[in-house]
């Protein structure tokens, strides 16, 4: 009986160890401003689409926030807070022009939503105000983070394991590297434009 209890405790301990939430942290350098770091798709693993709907506002002839990171399958709402006409379109998703989309025009105070099912960076544009630009970075996993302005980031709740982690920055080439998480993983990136 005593041996049985020891076995149970050992199994529970092992399970809790393998399912423990770790972190990936590091710094993105070589560029200034916010970047996005995310864990690439994990073979054989899928994640439920989040129910939360982040809002990107068009206000003062700007996309606010300028960069938004979401998980694949997320529905993003686009709000027009300006008293001028805007639209939202993107010429590609992750560089793939097949996923280009134009959402049209809608008046001040109204929103239009779109579900992003394909991972990659989405450059947001307005076809009457070409200076307006924003980005949605669609992460294939729920493990992602937007860096602070110094480039520091921390992705939390990442199960232990081996992953490929990618850093993205506006106008820079993506950089990916393998990371092993065992409670904690570290990955620094140096991006170039």
């Amino acid at each position, binding site marked *: 009986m005593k041996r049985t209890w020891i076995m149970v405790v050992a199994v529970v301990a092992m399970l809790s160890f393998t399912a423990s939430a770790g972190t990936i942290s590091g710094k993105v350098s070589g560029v200034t401003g916010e970047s996005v770091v995310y864990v690439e798709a994990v073979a054989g693993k899928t994640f439920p689409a989040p129910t939360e709907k982040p809002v990107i506002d068009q206000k003062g002839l*700007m996309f606010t926030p300028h960069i938004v990171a979401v998980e694949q399958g997320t529905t993003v709402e686009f709000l027009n807070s300006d008293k001028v006409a805007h639209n939202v379109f993107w010429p590609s998703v992750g560089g793939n022009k097949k996923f280009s989309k134009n959402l049209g025009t809608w008046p001040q105070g109204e929103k239009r939503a779109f579900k992003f099912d394909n991972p990659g960076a989405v450059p947001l544009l307005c076809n009457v105000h070409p200076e307006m630009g924003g980005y949605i970075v669609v992460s294939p996993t729920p493990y992602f983070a937007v860096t602070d302005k110094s480039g520091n980031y921390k992705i939390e709740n990442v199960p232990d394991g081996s992953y490929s982690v990618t850093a993205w920055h506006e106008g820079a080439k993506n950089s990916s590297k393998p990371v092993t998480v065992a409670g904690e993983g570290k990955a620094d990136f140096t991006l170039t434009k």
Partner: protein
Amino acid sequence: MRFRGPLFVFSLLLLTFFFATASSFAIPAFSRQYGTSCTTCHVDYPKLNDFGKAFKDAGFKFPKDDESFLKVPPVMLGAPAQKELWPHTVFPGTIPGLPPIGLRYNQFFQYTPASANNYNPGGSTAGPNVPRTDFESGLFSIFMAGNFGSDIAFWVDDDLSVSGANSNGGLGDGYLKFVNIGRVFKLPTDSLSLRVGQFELDLPFSQARSINISPWDIYTQANIGFSGSQNVNNVFALGDAAQGFEISGGHQYAGYHYSLAIVNQNTSGTSSGAPNVSSPGGFFSDSNYKDIYGRFSYRFNLEKDSASRHEVQAAGATGPRDHTSLALGTFFFKGRSVQRIDGDTGVLTAREPFYRFGGDFSFNYRTFNLFGLYMYGHDDDLLLNSGATGFTPGPAAKFNGGFLEADYLALPWVMTILRYDRVQSSADFLSQSGGVNYFSPVGSTRNRVTPGVQFLIHANIKAAFEYAIRPQQALVYDSNGKALNAFRTNTATGMLEFVY
């Protein structure tokens, strides 16, 4: 005035070209203030899109909620609450947070066929030689515009140099516009504004914001007689800057629009004023009379959706765009040309009323714009009588003509243009020298077809090309009516321009 001849008229045409194109502007100052691109207001600058028209109508402000778009806050010249103290304080206003300065430079390359030099009939007179090819520096201009608060807008532009010569330019427009002063009289919004200063008349199609390299010929048409026995000597052209004031109302992007201007009379091209009468800015008029210009137009926005139809821009399936629309308009100008001639009994003054009137239309569908204008001009002509003691009525000098132009924005950075200009002028016939018509064969004065294409290298850098195709002309015909020394003045012109 005996020196008139081909050289004089050719020079006049050249000057007309430079001055008529001297004030085409886009406003980088607004880009800086609002942090927005030229294309927010322009379709291939300086041509305005619907939003640009609304911005201009509003006194160089966003039509709604202007403050929220300013990236550079204006400098307060008094707290807003000072309004409550007025008239015991200066009414508070603002100035732009950045000096609202824009600069513009352009340069040209031109090709003209050799036969253009047949312009000198018989080669008997050393006239201007038109080079086959020519590199030309154009204009370096400065312009400032903005809003001082309280809906008072301002504009000043000046050519710092023309054709590479310093200070050879001059003031283009300089005015204050008091927008929507009708609110003082409880009139409908935007039904009454007042503009005071020097400005381009409220032309159906602004020459100042034309995308063409060469101006529309009808706007530069003056009624100038050639022979000394004829006294039609009116240098006024509709595209000239005028000094005076203008009331206006309505909108350029939808519904009605009107303007009525009282401006200086100057048909001789020289100003008046005796040296013993001082004037702070010098005299511009050459007579007591003031000219009148009026315009009325109505634009029908043809969008099916009512909400979209009444907005500044239409809401298309792929984003905001200019309305599908049809605009119809009419205009008139009335003046009285004054000429003073030494007669036997002293100075004789001939007062020759003249008028211009016409109509215009503009049809827009997405990025295609077809528009045109027709104008008729009429100058009474007084002839010095045989005793040089007075005048007798002569044949009126008339002209008519206009243009038809199609602009198609093939890509957001590629504009294609096809235009037809025509001016038919009896004044040109009156200008006959030795029994021949001056400008061109009888019945075909100043008509041309001009295709063009323009490329926006960036939103503020443009490469433009046009080719003016003119009919064969001649100055002299033989007894059988055959043209001698016939020539064509087909002209290919390229332009590089940038504003910043």
